[in-house]
C-alpha cells in the first residue's frame, strides 16, 4: 500500500511514518546539496536570515540536470546524503521536518531526527527522468551562482519515495538487507 502525503508535513504525521513505508509526496520542497548546506550553516552561525523557511519544511538533496526548453526541470534524482550529515543536525534543530536523499545517515543525524520527530525519505537513485515527471515547477530562490547546487523551490506531485529512517531511529538500511541476507557473516 502506498501512503499519499501532503507537504509541508505536519510533525505528528512525520512521526507516524515508519521505516519501509512506501509513500508519495505532494507539495513544496527545497533543494540543497553540499555547497548550499555550507552557506546555510554559515548564515546561521552569523545569525543572519536564511533565504528559505525551515519550520516543518522538507529538503531534497538533488543537483538537477539543466531544464530543456518546455520542461520545468531536467533529470532530478537524489544525491548521496552522507555528505550533508555534518550540517543536518543544526537544520533539524532549527525546524526542518523532512529530508529526501539516498544512503545512510550518521548517528548524530539520527539522534537529531529522534529529538525533533523528523523523517528521512529515500527517492530512488537513478530514476531521475521519471522523478522529474513528478516535479511540476522549479524556481531558483537562493544562491543562483551555485548553478545546479542553487536552492530551488520545487512543487512535487505524487513524487514516489520510501521512508528510510523514521522518527524512532529505525532504518530500512538495517532491517531491509537483514531480511534478505543469506550469507554467513
Amino acid at each position, binding site marked *: 500500500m502506498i501512503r499519499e502525503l501532503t507537504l509541508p508535513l505536519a510533525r505528528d504525521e512525520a512521526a507516524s511514518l515508519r521505516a519501509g513505508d512506501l509513500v508519495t509526496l505532494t507539495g513544496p520542497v527545497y533543494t540543497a546539496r553540499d555547497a548550499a548546506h555550507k552557506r546555510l550553516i554559515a548564515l546561521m552561525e552569523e545569525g543572519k536570515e536564511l533565504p528559505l523557511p525551515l519550520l516543518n519544511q522538507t529538503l531534497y538533496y538533488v*543537483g538537477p*540536470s539543466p531544464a530543456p526548453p518546455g520542461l520545468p526541470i*531536467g533529470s532530478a534524482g537524489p544525491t*548521496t546524503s552522507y555528505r550533508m550529515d555534518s550540517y543536518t543536525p543544526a537544520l533539524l534543530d532549527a525546524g526542518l521536518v523532512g529530508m529526501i536523499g539516498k544512503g545512510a545517515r550518521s548517528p548524530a543525524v539520527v539522534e537529531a531526527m529522534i529529538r525533533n520527530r523528523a523523517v528521512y525519505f529515500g527517492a530512488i537513485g537513478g530514476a531521475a527522468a521519471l522523478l522529474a515527471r513528478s516535479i511540476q515547477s522549479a524556481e531558483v530562490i537562493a544562491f543562483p551562482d551555485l548553478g545546479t547546487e542553487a536552492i530551488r523551490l520545487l512543487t512535487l506531485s505524487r513524487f514516489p519515495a520510501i521512508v528510510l529512517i523514521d522518527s524512532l531511529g529505525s532504518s*530500512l538500511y538495517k532491517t*531491509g*538487507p537483514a531480511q534478505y541476507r543469506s550469507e554467513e557473516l
Partner: protein
Amino acid sequence: MRELPVSAVRDAVRRLFLDINRKIGPDVEAAMRSALEKEISPAARYALTQLTDNYAAAEETGLPLCQDTGMAICFLTVGQDVHFTGGDLNEAVQQGVREAYEEGYFRKSIVEDPLFERKNTGDNCPAVLHLSMEPGESVRLMGIAKGFGSENMSRIFMLPPAAGEEGVLNAIVIAVREAGPNPCPPIVVGVGIGGDFEIAPLLAKRATARPLGVHHPDPRYAALEQTALDRINRTGIGAAGIGGLTTALWVSAEYAPTHIAGMPVAVCICCHASRHGEIAI
C-alpha cells in the same frame, strides 16, 4: 596510411555521449527487468519498477537517465597506420564531450581544482582520455559516463600473492558491503587483478563496460566472477540498498601480469545506470 580528420573523432565522441546518457544498453535493461521479475521484497520492487519505468521516461522526454551524467571517460584505440589531420586529437575529444553535454542539457559536474576552489569548469571538461595503439588502420572509441555515487565506492587492495582466490573474493565483497546503498544498486562490478597500482583500476574500469552476461574466456576467471556474483547477492543489500535479492547485476573480471611480490585487486563499482558504448570511427 589512413588519413582521418580529428573532426570525425569529435563527432563520434559527441554522438556517443548523447546516446549513452539517454538510452540504457539492452543488456542492462534485460538484467534489470529480470531482477524485477525475481524480486520478492515489496520495497525493492517499488524501486526496480521505477528504475525500469525510467528508461521510457528518458526516451519520451529526451532527459538523461540520471541527473549525474558523469565524468566522461574515453578509451581511444588507434591503429598505428592512422594519421590524424586538422588539429589536436585531445582537443577534438574534449570538444566532442563539450558539445554533447551542452546539446543534451546534461549536467556539468567537473571541478577544476579538486582540493581548494572546486570551481566548476562549466563544460564537463576535461574528459579522461586513455589512448592506446594497435596495428592497422582502425580507430575504436569506447566511452563511459561515470557517476560519482558509484565511483566513490570503488576500491583498490594491494593483496599479497598468498591471499589467493579467497582474498580476491573477500576484497570484492568487502567493497560491495561497505558501499551499501550509496552506489545505487543493483550495481555492475568490474574487477581488475594484477598489473600495478594504476593498471588494476584501469582493468576494473574497462571490465564494467563488458556486456552483462558475458563471462571471462578463461574458465577459472569465469568461475571467480560467478562466485563473486553469488556472494554479493547473498548480502541482501538489494535494489537501492533497502533489502532485496539483486545487489549486483553482474561481475566482470580482467587480469594482467604482475610482480612476483604482489597481487593488486581493484574493484570498480558502477551503478545500475551503467552507461557506456563503443563505436568504430
